């Protein structure tokens, strides 16, 4: 008989139930299947009512994040064989309100991304006319922020962050890492504008450096490091303000 595996999946159908429940499905076990393949099998062959997100199936789009046995993972990058023969427990990413089954609401994350102003900001007087061409950058300058630019907005880091789960006003790992990505870009001059969000009460100082955001990140962005480095630069700013108040640039 072919080998099988059990998936225990979080179900929430707001039109017919107030509380979520778990439903167990038996799926074939295949060496080359990822968890997303098994969920797709359920959707196609067993229960078409199951709702979840996915797109690229290759760790690029960032839409397939789920909790597998309490750990945030991309379902297209987690192999069944790493869990076989045990039952797998699947839930929507922790810390987000659930809309239906594995689909959670991401509006809060989207708002935070825009608050951080994730684009190159130039001082008005220093904006070059288009005819003068692009702002050039050396490979060494690129190296300084490249890691922070690899984010695919999968939100696994938020699901790993107990601070965000307890208080969702926290700006959170990916948004702060993205802010740092622009702050450290040699072409950008928008750090002061971003500081209002990054160094605010809900920004970097909420972080207690649990560090799990960086562990679960599938793109090695290391948001925990981005946050700690932002804390160091904000502290340096504070000391500069105290020691040389007249040196404040505007």
């Amino acid at each position, binding site marked *: 008989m072919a080998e099988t595996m059990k998936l225990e999946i979080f179900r929430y159908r*707001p039109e017919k139930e107030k509380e979520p429940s778990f439903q167990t499905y038996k799926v074939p076990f295949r060496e080359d299947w990822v968890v997303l393949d098994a969920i797709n099998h359920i959707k196609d062959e067993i229960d078409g009512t199951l709702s979840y997100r996915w797109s690229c199936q290759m760790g690029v789009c960032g839409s397939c994040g789920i909790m597998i046995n309490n750990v945030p993972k991309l379902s297209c990058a987690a192999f069944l064989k790493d869990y076989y023969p045990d039952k797998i427990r699947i839930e929507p990413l922790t810390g987000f309100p659930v809309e239906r089954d594995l689909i959670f609401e991401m509006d809060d994350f989207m708002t935070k991304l825009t608050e951080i102003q994730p684009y190159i900001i130039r001082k008005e007087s220093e904006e070059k006319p288009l005819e003068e061409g692009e702002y050039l950058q050396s490979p*060494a300058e690129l190296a300084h922020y490249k890691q922070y630019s690899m984010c695919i907005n999968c939100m696994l880091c938020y699901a790993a962050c*107990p601070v965000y789960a*307890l208080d969702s006003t926290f700006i959170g790992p990916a948004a702060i890492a993205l802010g740092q990505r622009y702050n450290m870009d040699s072409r950008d001059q928008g750090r002061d504008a971003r500081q209002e969000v990054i160094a605010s009460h809900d920004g970097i100082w909420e972080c207690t450096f649990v*560090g799990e955001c960086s562990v679960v990140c599938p793109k090695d962005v290391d948001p925990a490091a981005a946050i*700690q*480095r932002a804390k160091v630069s904000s502290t340096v700013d504070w000391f500069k303000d105290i020691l040389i108040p007249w040196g404040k640039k505007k």
Partner: protein
Amino acid sequence: MSVYHRPVSNIWWLKRKPYILFMIRELTSVFVAGYCIFLLVLVYKLTQGADAYGNFMVALKLPSSVALHLISLAFVLYHTITWFNLTPKILVLYRGEERIHQGLVAGTFYAVWAVISFMVVWLVLGV
């Protein structure tokens, strides 16, 4: 549409090993602070004259006091090692396009720690 907000349990930190280790790291701060207070008390006793200081020293040799010191030592070591291991995340250095190896950053902290510890031992034991 009604969304479902999942409650966060008070024992969330018991659910996964990394969170337990994080909580232990937070707890170790109490022992670090406790030892700082102990050092202040020690200095205070010194200012109170030889008798007060002598009595304090006798009290420190009690088995209960030695045990408490050993426990504190374990927690302070955990605190120090976990934080030293995190230093490369905060101190990101580049030589041109190359990032300076993380082990080198943490290693520098361990080396400075070893040198200072050696100096303290040398001073105390007068070897």
